[in-house]
Each structure stands twice: as structure tokens, then as C-alpha cells.
């Protein structure tokens, strides 16, 4: 079974092949061909992920490091003794991520086939989507921080390309789209800067970037067995393997060893820091990267705007996979975070605060996707906070469940938008005089009563909502409950402040979650249609509803993979904390949560209470005559709602104190340096004119004649060669006999090459 780990490069290569096919032959293939290639590539990646998973199970969860055959020496600087191989890591953590990325990715690809139907840049869309898969899978399968960084940057690029996918939409929308894309890119640069620095310091400290070397087992001492167990067991399991590896250890085991020794100093030229301090610096820098990619305070502002992209993109990149990369990275680096207590505290506070703030803002939004976007930010806050309180398994668990139900919610919202657009189309064609330029298919004020018009979407949406709100037995209940319980336990058992802070903030955030989700369900689906478009909305095509149904079922069932220990009946029926046990093989400090009946009841009652509250605020009577949000009218909640609606003036704050000053400086530089010197002189005189001439020649000759025809030409050439070969096949026995003789001659010459070489004296 070990052999099947060697499949892992295929996980990346297959989408790569898919995107290349679509890139070069997208136009020839047509919509159907493109979708078959793209969905097929994604699906095959999923199949391989499943195979890897099976292999993991069969080999007793041993991690494997697989070199890419061609790129095995990716970066080698012999003089500095630097070797960074392009190596894949198959362990339970990466397999989990592969399954999520490719599984949810495939469903979304299928959905996107329906959603993007008729778009003029259909092939390009799927090229980007597959490209995203490639980078995301590099990110999660790499065995060193540099590969993670490559993937990290790559997914950022895809995110940028896809947010701005409709950059040319008329009516000002296009501008907004490309602005949103740029905003995402720029904000993420800030985070990436932190990540780069973190990776560089890691390299400086350890001399390598590998997580673990090949054949090296994590030095494991599970906190799960005993929270108070000594951190370092006297004899390390997997010691034999560790010693079998020559050369330096991977970063995590090296860190463990240095921590155990104590007193290791890291020399940074003039300053020398203790190893613990270095780890704190590294983890804080990583955290900066996380706040960018996973949209945490203070860098979360890009994510809500990123919803300008097509809905499948929002679901895949900005809800299910890319934004969870930060969480994945911190779980991967759990050894660092476990050791760096201060960083963990910061992580917990940032995560919990983000969860609460985003939950609060979500209440005041009208755009259906924007609500979900803030909800995503909030849920990512949950995960980050879980990492902060040391509940790495819970964080990953929530990542998995969230990927399912949030993808579901986004896709369902896409279906709603599709339905609304369809309805609007119907209406404006039906009554030629009827015009309303204010109409926005994403604005919930125009919706209502879609329950009857779009039953599949409604029911699946309901499943997603209940899962997100944390109602038992939906997936969200299990994962959220585990995070809450873990934070509380961290506070009580270990006496850490982060636990208490996290717990209180997260409980409130959970209440907000249930509230804004039910508000959304009420506004969109319940009551009566408030606009003609809603009244004429139609259910989406089956290509779009099938993924919804699959995801809805997953949202219901996926939580059962990690039933907490001590849960009556289910724990016995399905096995206790299966998922955590699975992860423990690669996440050193993963530990299982026990079940607290009291807390679970409290959380469910809180969610139900919030839903009840939302139901009473947005009652049918209110919905029928909705002009303003009831919370905005009520004097007691007026100000809070305004604050929420204005997103806490976060963007404005950035504009006033960061962007304008920065821009003024930039203007000056641009005016003097760029325009006068660079543009006028260097660019135009020295570069532009010769370049223009070259381009004209290239575009005329090369592009049109060579590139365009090359693909057709390849096909023709293949056929021509083939038919020429066929002509040799005549059917006459003596010619065949001759060919056998010829062949024998060939074989003789080939096999006697050494002799012939001797003769010729070579």
C-alpha cells in the first residue's frame, strides 16, 4: 500500500493538465467539453485524494514524504548547504485538506457548469478554477513552508483573477469588481509580508523549511492522554526513525528537541534571541499572514467585497477552501503555537473578536452574499480562536464542517440570485414599460416568499442555516460545541485568560450567528414576494441543485465523524472523536473534546432563542410591508443597527488614517518621479517605441499564425502520421515476413551495439 502515496503528485498534476487543455483548446472544446475536462480533472483529483485516504487508513496513518520525480531538487544551493526539495507530504492532516478541497471543489465545479452557462468567458473561468485547485493543493500537500508559500501566493492570484472575473460588467459594476479584486490583492500583500518574514526567520533558525524529513516521525506526546502530562516523554516514540535520518531534522522535531534542551539561542547577527522568543516572533508573523488570508481583524475588510466574483468562486475560494488556508497553516505549525503561549493568546483574542465583530456586522447587511461573507469571517474567527486555545482538532473539524455548509449556503444564494435574475428578466420582458433601475438581484429587500418558488433551494438553505446556527444534529453543532467547550476548558483547567475571553466572545458570536441567519431565511424565503422578480423567480437547473442536495446531506451528516467522547448512544454507535484520532497522527497537539451536556444544551437553547427572536422580529406581518429593517426603526436598537449596517466604519477608518496619507505620499512620488522621469523619459523614449515595433511584428506573425494554428496542426499531424503508418499494413504475408526479418535485424543491431562499438574502437 505504500506505493499509493506516490500518487500524490497526481493530485496536483491532474488539475494542471485539465487547465492546460482548457487553456489551449478551450475554444475548440466548447462549453460541454470544457466542463467535462474541468469537472473531470477536479473529480479525478478527488478520487486520488480518496485513494490516499484509503492508503492512509491501510498503512496505519503513517506519514509519507514523496518527492516529485522531476523536481526532487527544487532549490539547491550547494555552497550554502541549502536544499529545499519539492516534496509532498501525505499525512492525515494533508489528506483531510485534500479531501475537503477536491471534494467540495468538485461539487462546486459541477454547480459552476450550470451557473456559468452561457458566459462568454466560460473556458477561462474553468481555467482559473482548475488553477486555483492546483495552487490550493500545492499549499496543503507541500512538505515545507516554501511550497506552502508558493500555494499561498498562487491561490491569492486566483482569488484576484476570479473576484475581478466580471471586470467588464456594464453599469459601473465592473469598476466595483476590479476594485474589489485589487483590494483583496493589496490587503493580502500586507498579510503575505508577515508570512514571508516568518518563513525567512524560520529558515534562518532551523536551516531548513521541511516540516518533517522523510522517515521522521513526529515526536509525539499527546496532550489528549493527560492534559497535565509532562511535555516531553523521556523516551520518544519513533526515535529509531528519527535517528535513521541523517542530517538535520525537520523544523517541528528540531523545535521540540531545542525546547526540551532549553536555553537554545538563535543568533541574528547582532542580536541573539532565546529560542522561545524566536518562536513567538515567528508565530506572530505567521498570524499576520493568517489575518490576511483568513480575513481576521485587522485585515478582514477584503473578504466582503470579494463577493463581487461569481458565486461559485465565493463558495469555493472565499468560504470553503482558500480562506481556511490560514487555519490549516496554524494547525500545521501547532508545535510552534503550542510552545508560544503569548502568540496563542493573541490568536485566541483576535479570532474570538473577529467572530463577534463580523457576526455583529452581518446583522445589518442587505446583500444576501454580504451576510454570508461576514458570516464566513465570523466562522473563520471561531477556527482561529480554536487554534488560539489549543483546540487544533476542533479547529480542523470546524474547518471541514464549515466547508460543507458554507459552500452550501453560498451555492444556494447563487441559486437564489439566479432565480431572481430570471424573474426580473421575465418581468421586464412581460411589461415593456416596467423599469426599475434600483433592482438588485442580491438585495434581500426585493426577495421574500421564495420558499414556494424555489423549494429545493429553500430546503437546502434551511439545512445550511441550521448547521451554521449549531442546531443538533447538524454538522455545525458538533464542531462549534467542541470549540466552545475547549475554550472553556482551557480557561478552567489551565487557568489561561485566553480561554475565558474566547469563550465569552464566542458564545455571544454564536447567538449572533443564529440570529442573522434566521433573519436571512425570513427575508429571502418566508413571507410574501416583495418584488415582481421574486414572484416570478424559478428554480435553478438540476446541474445546480444536485450539488446543493449533496452538500445539504453532508451538512447534516459530516458532524458525525467526530462525536465527542461521552455523548450518549451516538458515541457508542459511531465511535468517539474519530476525526480527532485520525488527525492525531499528524497534528501533535490535537486532543479530543469530551462532551458536556450542560454546555451543549446551553448552546442549542441559545441558538434556538436567537432564532425565535429573529422570527419574532421578522414576523410575516413585518415582512409583508418591509421598507426598513424593524431593528432600524425601533429606537432602542436604532443606533446599534446603524453601526452594524455601516460595518463599524472599519473601511472609513482605514481610508482616513492609512489610505489617504499613503495616497498623498504616493501622488507626490508619482508626479515627480514616475511621470516626469520614468514615464516621460525612460519609458517612452527608451522602451515604448522599440517595444511597440517588436509587438506589432509578434502579434501579427507569431500569435495569429503560429499559436492559433498549432493546436489544429497537432491534430492534423497526428492523423497524417497515423494514416501513413497504416499504409504499411498491406496484408501480404511475404511483406510481413520481411518486416519480421527487418525487426530481427534491428534487434541484432541494437543488442550488439557493444560489439559494434568495440569494432569501431569507440
Amino acid at each position, binding site marked *: 500500500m505504500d506505493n499509493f502515496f506516490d500518487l500524490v503528485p497526481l493530485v496536483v498534476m491532474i488539475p494542471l493538465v485539465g487547465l492546460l487543455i482548457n487553456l489551449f483548446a478551450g475554444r475548440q472544446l466548447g462549453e460541454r467539453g470544457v466542463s467535462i475536462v474541468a469537472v473531470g480533472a477536479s473529480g479525478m483529483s478527488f478520487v486520488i485524494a480518496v485513494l490516499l485516504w484509503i492508503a492512509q487508513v*491501510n498503512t496505519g496513518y503513517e506519514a509519507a514524504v514523496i518527492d516529485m520525480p522531476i523536481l526532487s531538487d527544487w532549490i539547491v544551493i550547494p555552497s550554502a548547504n541549502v536544499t529545499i526539495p519539492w516534496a509532498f507530504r501525505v499525512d492525515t492532516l494533508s489528506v483531510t485538506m485534500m479531501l475537503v478541497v477536491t471534494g467540495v471543489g468538485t461539487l462546486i465545479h459541477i454547480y459552476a457548469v450550470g451557473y456559468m452557462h452561457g458566459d462568454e468567458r466560460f473556458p477561462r473561468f474553468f481555467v482559473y478554477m482548475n488553477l486555483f485547485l492546483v495552487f490550493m493543493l500545492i499549499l496543503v500537500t507541500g512538505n515545507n513552508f516554501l511550497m506552502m508559500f508558493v500555494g499561498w501566493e498562487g491561490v491569492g492570484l486566483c482569488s484576484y483573477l476570479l473576484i475581478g472575473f466580471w471586470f467588464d460588467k456594464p453599469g459601473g459594476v465592473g469598476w466595483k469588481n476590479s476594485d474589489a479584486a485589487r483590494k483583496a490583492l493589496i490587503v493580502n500583500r500586507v498579510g503575505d509580508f508577515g508570512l514571508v518574514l516568518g518563513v525567512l526567520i524560520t529558515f534562518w533558525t532551523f536551516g531548513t523549511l521541511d516540516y518533517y524529513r522523510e522517515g521522521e516521525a513526529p515526536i509525539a506526546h499527546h496532550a489528549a492522554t493527560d492534559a497535565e502530562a509532562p511535555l516531553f516523554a523521556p523516551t520518544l516514540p519513533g526515535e529509531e526513525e528519527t535517528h535513521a535520518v541523517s542530517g538535520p531534522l525537520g523544523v517541528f522535531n528540531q523545535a521540540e528537541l531545542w525546547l526540551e534542551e532549553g536555553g537554545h539561542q538563535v543568533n541574528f547577527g547582532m542580536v541573539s534571541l532565546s529560542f522561545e522568543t524566536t518562536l513567538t516572533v515567528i508565530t506572530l508573523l505567521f498570524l499576520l499572514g493568517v489575518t490576511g488570508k483568513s480575513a481576521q481583524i485587522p485585515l478582514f475588510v477584503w473578504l466582503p467585497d470579494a463577493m463581487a466574483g461569481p458565486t461559485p468562486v465565493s463558495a469555493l475560494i472565499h468560504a470553503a477552501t482558500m480562506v481556511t488556508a490560514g487555519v490549516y497553516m496554524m494547525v500545521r505549525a501547532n508545535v510552534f503555537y503550542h510552545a508560544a503561549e503569548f502568540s496563542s493568546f493573541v490568536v485566541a483574542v483576535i479570532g474570538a473578536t473577529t467572530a463577534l465583530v463580523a457576526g455583529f456586522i452581518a446583522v445589518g447587511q442587505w446583500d444576501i452574499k454580504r451576510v454570508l461573507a461576514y458570516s464566513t469571517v465570523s466562522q473563520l474567527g471561531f477556527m482561529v480562536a480554536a487554534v488560539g486555545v489549543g483546540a487544533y482538532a476542533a479547529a480542523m473539524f470546524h474547518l471541514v464542517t464549515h466547508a460543507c455548509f458554507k459552500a452550501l449556503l453560498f451555492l444556494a444564494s447563487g441559486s437564489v440570485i439566479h432565480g431572481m435574475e430570471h424573474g426580473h428578466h421575465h418581468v421586464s420582458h412581460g411589461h415593456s414599460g416596467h423599469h426599475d433601475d434600483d433592482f438588485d438581484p442580491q438585495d434581500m429587500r426585493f426577495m421574500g416568499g421564495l420558499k414556494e418558488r424555489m423549494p429545493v433551494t429553500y430546503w437546502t438553505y434551511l439545512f445550511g442555516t441550521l448547521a451554521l446556527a449549531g442546531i443538533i444534529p447538524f454538522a455545525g453543532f458538533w464542531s462549534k460545541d467542541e470549540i466552545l467547550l475547549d475554550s472553556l476548558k482551557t480557561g478552567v483547567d489551565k487557568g489561561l485568560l485566553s480561554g475565558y475571553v474566547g469563550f465569552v466572545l464566542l458564545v455571544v458570536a454564536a447567538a449572533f450567528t443564529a440570529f442573522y441567519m434566521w433573519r436571512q431565511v425570513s427575508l429571502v424565503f418566508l413571507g410574501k414576494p416583495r418584488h415582481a422578480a421574486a414572484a416570478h423567480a424559478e428554480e435553478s437547473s438540476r446541474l445546480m441543485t444536485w450539488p446543493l442536495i449533496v452538500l445539504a446531506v453532508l451538512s447534516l451528516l459530516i458532524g458525525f465523524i467526530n462525536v465527542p467522547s461521552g455523548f450518549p448512544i451516538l458515541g457508542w454507535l459511531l465511535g468517539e472523536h474519530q476525526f480527532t484520532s485520525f488527525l492525531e497522527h499528524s497534528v501533535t497537539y490535537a486532543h479530543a473534546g469530551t462532551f458536556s451536556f450542560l454546555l451543549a444544551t446551553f448552546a442549542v437553547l441559545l441558538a434556538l432563542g436567537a432564532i425565535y427572536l429573529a422570527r419574532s422580529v421578522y414576523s410575516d406581518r413585518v415582512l409583508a410591508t418591509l421598507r426598513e429593517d424593524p431593528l432600524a426603526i425601533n429606537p432602542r436598537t436604532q443606533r446599534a443597527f446603524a453601526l452594524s449596517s455601516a460595518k463599524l466604519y472599519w473601511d472609513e477608518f482605514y481610508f482616513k488614517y492609512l489610505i489617504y496619507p499613503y495616497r498623498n505620499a504616493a501622488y507626490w512620488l508619482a508626479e515627480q518621479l514616475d511621470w516626469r522621469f520614468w514615464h516621460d523619459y525612460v519609458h517612452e523614449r527608451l522602451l515604448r517605441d522599440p517595444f511597440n515595433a517588436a509587438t506589432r511584428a509578434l502579434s501579427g506573425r507569431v500569435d495569429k499564425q503560429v499559436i492559433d494554428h498549432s493546436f489544429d496542426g497537432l491534430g492534423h499531424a497526428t492523423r497524417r502520421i*497515423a494514416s501513413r503508418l497504416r499504409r504499411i499494413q498491406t496484408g501480404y504475408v511475404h511483406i510481413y515476413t520481411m518486416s519480421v526479418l527487418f525487426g530481427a535485424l534491428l*534487434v541484432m543491431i541494437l543488442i550488439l551495439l557493444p560489439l559494434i562499438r568495440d569494432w569501431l574502437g569507440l
Partner: protein
Amino acid sequence: MSGVPSLSDLNLAATLPVSFLALYACLLMIVDLFVPRTRKHITAGLTMLGLGIALVLALLPLAGAARFGDGERAFGGMYIADSFSDGVNVIVLITALLGVMVAYNYLDRIQRQRGEYYSLLLFTTLGVMMMGAAGDLVVVFVALELLSIPLYILSGFRRPQEASEESALKYFILGAFASGFLVYGIALIYGATGVTDFEGIWAAVEEIVAEDASSKYLLLVGAGLLLVGLGFKVAAVPFHMWTPDVYQGAPTSVVAYMSVAAKVGGFAALVRVLGSGMVNFALDGGLVAAWQDTVWLIAALTMILGNFVAIVQSDLKRLLAYSSIAHAGYMLIGVAAAGSAPVADEAARAVIMYLMAYAFTNVGAFAVVIAVERDDASNTGLESMRGLAVKQPLLAASMAIFMFSLTGIPLTAGFIGKWFVFKAAIAADLIPVAVVGVLTSLISAFYYLRIVWYMYFESGESEAHVPVPLAWAISIAAVGTLLLGIFPYLLSDMTHKITLAFGP
């Protein structure tokens, strides 16, 4: 040694699957005389019974459940009963079982329902089994003839029809020609080493290499001629020309069987002779066997030519003929990899796994061709697959599985076979040929998937009929293809005991 040979000297028990089947085949031939012409299903049933028993006898030692006889050698080392021969036995017996299933209705339809068909099938199966178990070049030659001659006759089984007779004659003449090369090769090897048994050859080669004796060239030529003779059997380029003509002309049920069985025999012998007997034949202080370059070049040629010419075929049987040429190329990669001594065992395993996967897939694909073929052997064009998915969804789905497997798409047996072969090639540092293999696999997708396209995306009136034993064969083949693809460890567990090495 006592002058009087006794049965216990023979270690006859070790040859149980083969000796049982040989006896059974002879008995069946006599029993068949008493089976009336209208009730040949009795003969067919008895054939399947015998094959089934032999299959069980072959599976038992492979699964480690039982071991027959005393040690691996029988008949003074002429017969080797190890995991490799067990693997070969299992593959060819499964193929033969499927072959009988696909043949029964077909023979009825072409009105050639005769008991000899089944006897000949059993004899040729015996030949393949002997090739897998051969411990001596003389046995290889005799077994090869036992494998070939019934196949020549079976190719002409549809006798009044000209195409069938012509194909039999072509196959016979060219086959005899190739056998000549084989015998010549054996003679030269004997001349160079003074022995014909593999272990003796191995020891002699060791000596020749150590002394750098001048007989090394004689040995090389011998190996080359052997390669010609066996290369013909497995349809390797440039000895492949007979394949399309014979496959097209011969009765489809025969082709279904022989496209796999002849390959199993040929590759078993190639792996035995080259990978086991001459694996240490490294010249000039090299680490890999001197014949390796030749084999991998032939493999590359075979893959390239087979796949390219398959693209333009418009007849299903011809297309599958070229496809089988191409697949011979992939298996030859495994043989070539066996030329690096450290990889030899892995390569032998890879070849066995590939053959296993190929057996299910290819017999299945030909069985589908039988289903769409008309009684007068027409309607085997590609267009006969049009609209099959509408008329016969299960048949089309099976065909799609076979095509995916032949292409080597994951979750099918074909992928696993290719995977292991390429892996062995990479382990043997034959990266260029592995690359050629991957690229040609991509090309092969073009014509395999075109069939799938025809079945699912084009409308047409297909006229497939799937009577009972044929339906069994197709479903067994499809299930086998999927099963081996989804649970690859079935294959790897089956073969993990295979070792070929002689000496220390």
C-alpha cells in the same frame, strides 16, 4: 541418482494445476465424442468446470492457503512452481474461463459449435501455464508451440469463411517463422553457456561476465533472437504486423482469448528468461543487463506505433488489435525494468499485475464486440457503437469501464497496472521510456474515449444482443476491472511474494 525414476522424484504434486488440467483436457476430448452435436453446452460446462477446479488449485498456493508438493522444483528443475507461475496460472485460467463464456453463444451463431474448440482452448491454456512455469529453454520452446498451434487452428475455426482461414494461415506461417528465431536463439544460448536451464544459464552468465569471456556476444545474439521469437508472440513492434490481420479475421471469441493468453505466455517466458536467467548479464562493468536497452527501445517503439496507428482505425477489432500492440509496449517496459537486478522482482510483479488487469479488461472489450457483431462477422465498425448507451445502458457502461481501463484512468484496473509498470521503470532509472508511456497513454485516450463518445453522445441504432454466458463474462470482466482498480491491494497482495532471483 537411482537409475529407475520414481514418481516421487518428479514432485508431480507441485505441478497439480497443470497436470490436472492436462489430464482433464485429454479426458474431455474423449467425453466430447459422446456428447451429441445439439448438446454441446455440456462440453462447454465441463470445460468451465475443469478450468474452475484448476483455478482453485492455482489460487490456493497463491493465497498461501495450501502448498502442493515438496519445494518449488519439479521434473528436475524443468518445472518451477513458485508465486510467479501461480500468478500466471490464475491469470490465464480466468482468461480461459471468460473465453469459454464468450465463445459458447458465438459458436452457436456462426454454426461452428464443436467440442474441439474447447479442447483446443484447454490445450493452449496448458501451453501458457507451462510457459509461466518453465525452468528450461527446451520447455519454453515446447510450451510455446503448445500455446501457438491450437491458436493457429482456432484462428481458422470459422472455416468456410475466407477471412478466418486466411488469418489462420498468416498466423501459422509467420508464427512458424518466429519460432525458428526462437529455436535459433536457444541454440546460440546453449552454445554460449552449455546449458539450457535458467539456473545454469544464470551461473554461466555470472562466469561469462566475471571473465569477460568472448562468448558474451554469442549469448547476446541468442538473447536477441529469443526476443524476436517471443516478441512476435506478444505482438511487439516490429514483429506485430500479423496482429491486426489475424485479429480481424479470426473468430472474435478466439481473439478475445488469444489477445490475452498469448501475451501472458510470451511475457511470462520473457520475464523468466531475461529477468531471471540473464538478469546478471551486465557488460563492461555496468549495473544493468545488456539486453535492457534493446527491450526498452522496442517497448517505446511498440507504444508509439500501436497507439498512433490505432487512432485511424475504423474497425473495432483492428482498433483493439493495435491497442493490444500498444499494451504489449507497456508490459515490455516492465520487462525492461527487470533488467536492473535490484528492480527485477518489482518489475516481474508489475508485469503480472498489468497482465491481470489487462486480462479482465481486454476480454471484456472483445466480449462487447461479440455482442454487437452480426452473425456474418460484419458490423464491427466503430459506428456500431453509436447509441449503444440508449439501447443497452449496462453494456455501454461496461464498455466504458473497459475503455477507461485500457486508457488507464484511475479507479480502473488498467490504471493500477500502468502505475506499477511505470513505477518499476522509474525505479530502474528508465525515466524516458516511462515518459513515453505516459504520453502515449494520453494519446490512447483519444481513440478509447472516442468509443465512449460514440456510445453516449451519438445517436444510432445499435443491435447488440447479450445472451446469458456472454453477459456473465462481460459482467465478471467489468466487476473485475473495477474491483482491481478500487482495491489495488488485491493485486499487490497477490503478487508480493514473487521473487525471481537465483543465486545469493
